[in-house]
C-alpha cells in the first residue's frame, strides 16, 4: 500500500516534469561518460606501465666517430672499451641487478633503423657507422636503472646511459594530463548535474506544494514525504548512468577494441570490455548516490516543520 503510493507519487512527479527529467538524464549521461573515460584512461595508463616497464631496457650507447657528447671525443669506442663495459655488466656489483643484456652492433642498429623508418627519407642518408653500438640491458627490477646509469656513465667510450622508462614517462604524463582533463570536465558537469537535479526536485515539490502542505498537516512522516522526491531524482539519474555505462562499453568495444587496436597493431595492450564492465557499476553507484544526496538536500526545505 505505502510502497505503491510512494512509487505512484514519484511516477506522477516524473510525468509532470518530463523536460527537466530529460535534461537531468542528459547531463548525468554526459558527465558520467567523462568520469568513465577518465577511469578508463587511468586503467589504460596502468596497463601500459605494466606492459612497458617490463620491456623497458637501459641502453648503454657507445661512442661513434661523430659523437662529442658524453665521454666521446669524436672517436668510435674501441673494442677494449666495449669489453670493459661488458665486464662491468658481468661484475658482482652490477650482475645481480641485471636479468640479461644484449649487444647491438652497428649493423643490427642499422637494420632496426631501416625497419623502423622504412617510409622516412632519413633512412637513405644514414649509414651503419652513424648509429651507436649499444648494450640493451634488461633489469631484474626496472626501478634500479639509476645504479647502472651511475656506474657506467663515467666509463670511457660510453656516450650515454639511457633509461627508456624516461621516454615512456613522457607518454604517460600526456595520458595523465588527458585523464585529469577528463576528470576536470566530469567534475564541472557533475556540479551542473547535481544543481539541475536539485532544481528539478524543487520544481516538482513546488508543483505539489498543496499535497505537501496537507501531508505535513495531517502528520505524514518526513521519510514518507521525501522518499518520492528522492526516488524521482535517483530514477532520472539512473537512466543517465545506465546510458553512460552503455556509452563506455560502446567506446571500448567499437573505438578501442575495434579501431585503435587494429590501427596501433600489437604495439601495446589496450583496455578491454572486461575493464569497461568494472567501470559501469562505479558510474551507476556514483550517479545514484549524487542524485539521492542532492534531491535529499533540495527537499529538506519542504520538511521543515
Amino acid at each position, binding site marked *: 500500500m505505502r510502497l505503491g503510493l510512494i512509487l505512484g507519487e514519484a511516477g506522477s512527479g516524473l510525468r509532470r516534469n518530463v523536460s527537466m527529467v530529460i535534461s537531468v538524464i542528459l547531463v548525468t549521461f554526459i558527465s558520467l561518460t567523462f568520469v568513465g573515460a577518465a577511469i578508463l584512461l587511468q586503467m589504460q595508463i596502468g596497463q601500459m606501465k605494466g606492459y612497458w616497464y617490463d620491456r623497458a631496457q637501459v641502453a648503454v650507447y657507445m661512442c661513434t666517430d661523430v659523437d662529442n657528447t658524453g665521454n666521446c671525443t669524436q672517436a668510435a669506442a674501441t673494442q677494449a672499451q666495449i669489453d670493459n663495459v661488458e665486464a662491468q655488466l658481468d661484475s658482482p656489483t652490477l650482475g645481480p641487478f641485471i636479468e640479461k643484456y644484449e649487444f647491438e652492433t652497428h649493423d643490427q642498429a642499422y637494420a632496426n633503423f631501416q625497419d623502423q623508418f622504412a617510409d622516412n627519407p632519413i633512412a637513405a642518408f644514414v649509414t651503419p657507422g652513424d648509429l651507436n653500438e649499444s648494450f640493451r640491458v634488461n633489469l631484474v627490477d626496472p626501478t634500479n636503472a639509476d645504479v647502472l646509469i651511475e656506474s657506467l656513465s663515467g666509463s670511457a667510450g660510453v656516450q650515454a646511459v639511457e633509461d627508456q622508462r624516461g621516454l615512456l614517462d613522457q607518454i604517460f604524463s600526456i595520458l595523465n594530463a588527458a585523464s585529469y582533463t577528463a576528470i576536470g570536465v566530469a567534475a564541472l558537469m557533475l556540479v551542473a548535474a547535481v544543481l539541475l537535479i536539485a532544481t528539478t526536485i524543487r520544481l516538482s515539490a513546488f508543483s505539489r506544494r498543496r499535497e505537501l502542505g496537507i501531508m505535513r498537516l495531517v502528520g505524514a512522516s518526513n521519510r514518507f514525504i521525501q522518499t518520492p522526491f528522492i526516488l524521482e531524482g535517483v530514477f532520472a539519474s539512473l537512466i543517465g548512468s545506465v546510458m553512460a555505462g552503455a556509452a563506455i562499453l560502446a567506446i571500448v568495444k567499437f573505438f578501442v577494441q575495434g579501431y585503435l587496436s587494429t590501427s596501433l597493431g600489437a604495439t601495446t595492450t589496450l583496455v578491454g570490455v572486461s575493464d569497461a564492465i568494472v567501470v559501469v557499476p562505479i558510474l551507476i553507484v556514483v550517479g545514484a548516490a549524487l542524485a539521492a544526496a542532492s534531491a535529499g538536500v533540495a527537499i529538506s526545505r519542504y520538511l521543515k*516543520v
Partner: protein
Amino acid sequence: MIRFDTVSKAYPGTTRPALNTVSLEILKGEFVFLVGASGSGKSSFLRLILKEETPTKGEIHVLGQHLNSLTNRKVPYFRRNLGVVFQDFRLLPNKTVFDNVAFTLQVIGKSRGFIQEAVPDALKMVGLAGKSNRFPHELSGGEQQRVAIARAVVNKPAILLADEPTGNLDPATSAGIMTLLERINLGGTTVLMATHDAGIVDQMQRRVIELISGQIVRDERQGGYQTQAIPVQSFGTFASTTDSQGISK
C-alpha cells in the same frame, strides 16, 4: 489538554510580538471560540498548537506533550492527533471527495481495509455519503468545507482546530457547519475555533477567548462575540504577575 504558560511569540524582524505572555488552559471536551481582530494573534495561537511555530518564550503543553522539547522527527506523529480545518478548505482539486479524505489516512500509513471503513463513516457523518465520487469543484462551498471537516476528523483526533471555517460561507451554510462541529464536539473532541462571525459566537454561548494585540483580554464561559459581563482584563498578564509574586515570596 492544551496549556499555554506565559507564552510569547515574536516573529523575526518585528518589535511587537504576535502573542504576548498568554496563559490559558483548555480542557478535554471543551468548545472554545477564539475571537479578535485580524492580526490579533489568533492564527499564531493555532500555529503554536500545531507546532508550526515555536514560542519565543513560555511553555506549551498539548495532549500531554511538551511542545517546546518535541523533536522535529516526532512532530508528524504528534499532528496525527490533531485535525485542522481552514477557511479556504485546502482540498486537492484533482482528487475525488473520497480520495481527499483517504489521502490523510494513506500518508500516515493506514491499511487499505481501515481506509475503506473509516472514509465512508466520516463522509456519512458530515452528510456527504452520496457524493464520494465527486470532485471538489463540483461541490458547493459548504459541501467542500464538509469534506475538509471529514478529512480532519477521519482519524478521530482528540483536538479539532478550525481557522475561520465559516469565513467563506453564507449564514445558513455556516449554521450547518456549526451544527456539524457541535456534533463532533459532543463526540468528545475538543474544538478550538478562530472566527470573526459574531452571530455564531453569540448564538452558541460557549467559552470565548478574545485576543487583542496578542494579549488575552477576555476569557468568558458562555460568552458572546462582544463582551456583556465585566471583562477579565489582561488575563494572561494578571496570571503571570501572581505567579512571579508567588516566586518572589
